[in-house]
């Protein structure tokens, strides 16, 4: 995985471990929980975009499938939380394969178009299946997570649970990046024709990574549903898919750490702009544009470059 990554991971875990001891406010804890949930999706997207070079405009739909599977199956059908969670993963996997197998065998950005359509279809289904999903007014009463008699209801406990899962997925992603699979993916990004000539089955790896990213989003969906205990279709609209893409771009596509950073910044930013009242969206836009103008490769790369530049200067 590399010494640098292990050190960063260690620091991150310590910071997260002591965070609840210093911050007791439920508000800040819930923001941190949302960061973890977004980070899980964005890590998957970052593998897909930054490493396999493909764009998905429908990841909010996989997020939604995870959330609705957990919500509907536990509330209406009496499934256990675990069973509902795996149903979500299973359904996301099937859907992702159905989209990816025909489109990723083609060259070009067909996946973006297919996922755009898929996202809209799922969004409409969430809205129209009134008896099951509750339609536009949403589904409430989703139980909070508990197993072996231990409840994860409180903010602090859920904070640890969500971040533990996020860190495990982060380690999994880092392992992939630093393996022959990760190299094959980056090779596809560098030169598809050469990767093929080296024996890399390009379409197979693209499909695998897309399915993996859908599973990440589904996991995040389950964690979201059991935390908020209420879900409605608007949380899983096209706008959210685009916001998730923005997190990858702002953080920096080629790095899993960038994904974490992007998820963090774009989750905190709208909250911290409340002071601007009705101008918040304007300020938000200006900040995003400034970041992209001055750090076109994302904040992670941008910061790394400015640190080395400052070290040289002084």
């Amino acid at each position: 995985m590399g010494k640098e990554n292990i050190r960063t991971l260690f620091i991150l875990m310590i910071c997260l471990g002591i965070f609840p001891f210093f911050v007791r406010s439920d508000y800040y804890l819930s923001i941190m929980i949302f960061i973890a949930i977004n980070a899980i999706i964005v890590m998957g997207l970052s593998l897909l975009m930054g490493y396999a070079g493909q764009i998905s405009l429908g990841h909010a739909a996989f997020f939604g499938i995870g959330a609705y599977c957990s919500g509907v199956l536990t509330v209406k059908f009496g499934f256990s939380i675990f069973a509902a969670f795996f149903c979500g993963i299973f359904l996301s996997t099937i859907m992702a394969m159905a989209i990816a197998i025909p489109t990723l065998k083609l060259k070009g950005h067909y996946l973006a178009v297919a996922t755009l359509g898929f996202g809209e279809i799922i969004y409409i289904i969430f809205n129209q299946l009134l008896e099951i999903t509750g339609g536009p007014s949403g589904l409430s009463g989703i139980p909070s997570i508990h197993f072996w008699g231990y409840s994860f209801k409180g903010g602090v406990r859920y904070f640890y649970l969500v971040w533990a899962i996020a860190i495990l997925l982060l380690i999994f992603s880092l392992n992939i990046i630093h393996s022959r699979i990760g190299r094959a993916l980056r090779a596809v990004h560098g030169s598809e024709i050469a990767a093929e000539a080296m024996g890399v089955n390009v379409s197979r790896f693209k499909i695998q990574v897309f399915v993996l990213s859908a599973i990440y989003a589904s996991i995040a969906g389950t964690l979201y549903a059991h935390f908020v205990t209420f879900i409605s279709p608007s949380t899983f609209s096209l706008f959210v898919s685009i916001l998730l893409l923005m997190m990858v771009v702002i953080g920096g596509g080629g790095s899993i750490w960038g994904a974490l950073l992007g998820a963090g910044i774009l989750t905190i930013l709208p909250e911290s702009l409340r002071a601007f009242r009705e101008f918040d969206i304007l300020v938000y836009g200006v900040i995003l544009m400034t970041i992209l103008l001055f750090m076109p490769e994302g904040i992670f790369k941008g910061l790394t470059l400015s640190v080395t530049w400052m070290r040289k200067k002084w």
Partner: protein
Amino acid sequence: MDEEKMVTLQPILETSRLRKTFGGVMAIFDLNFTVMSGQIKAIIGPNGAGKTTLFNMITGVLPPTGGTIQFKGSQINGEKPHRIAQKGISRTFQTVELFGNMTVLENVMVGRHIRSGMGLIRSGLRLPGVKREERFILESAHEKLEMVGLTPKADEPASGLPLGEKKLLEVARALATDPQLILLDEPAAGLNETEMLRMAEIIRRIRESGMTVLLVEHHMDLVMNISDEVVVLNYGQKVTEGTPEEVKRDEKVIDAYLGVEIEYA
């Protein structure tokens, strides 16, 4: 070529009535030719003679319009490029196709892809065996870098190398797949005199280690120097075939190619 070697030679690659048309243009027309195992064979011909098209058909990038390609006795036309690579054919590209976003060493490590087998889940969980395989990949990649003399540049980004070293890196990457047949598409194009000598030396060493080399090249000195046999193509057809001496004397070649215009592209 010495007589004794001739006797043990076996065909490793054979094309039969191979044909490729783009619309109405015949890029390759009913081409029959054979590469013997252990040979260095060169394909020469003017630009547009169909040399790169031929390479692309052998490696599966382009499907042939007609005819067959046999590798070690089994038909490979119509197979996907990655399947053909697994069977033991590797290549370099005329327009350098490196993974510019990776280091020199990592480029060669990608070449080990088909000689290793850890999948997504096992790699992600870092199950036992992953680390050992990773070490094998690394060792072998270093070995190939050593062979082309790029060891000092191992950790540099591939995109930053000068052209001559990029060409060498492509060769190292192709070697990392442990091919039986290696196709070199203009390995000396854009190289200076010293770099060309180094490339010639490396090509000879590749053959010595038991591989077969098929190359397309415009530099006649290099071709005539290192090749056991030369095929001359023009307008997608074979003009002649033989040892460098025979080809140099052939009048059809002088007419079609050497006599009219010598290219040092």
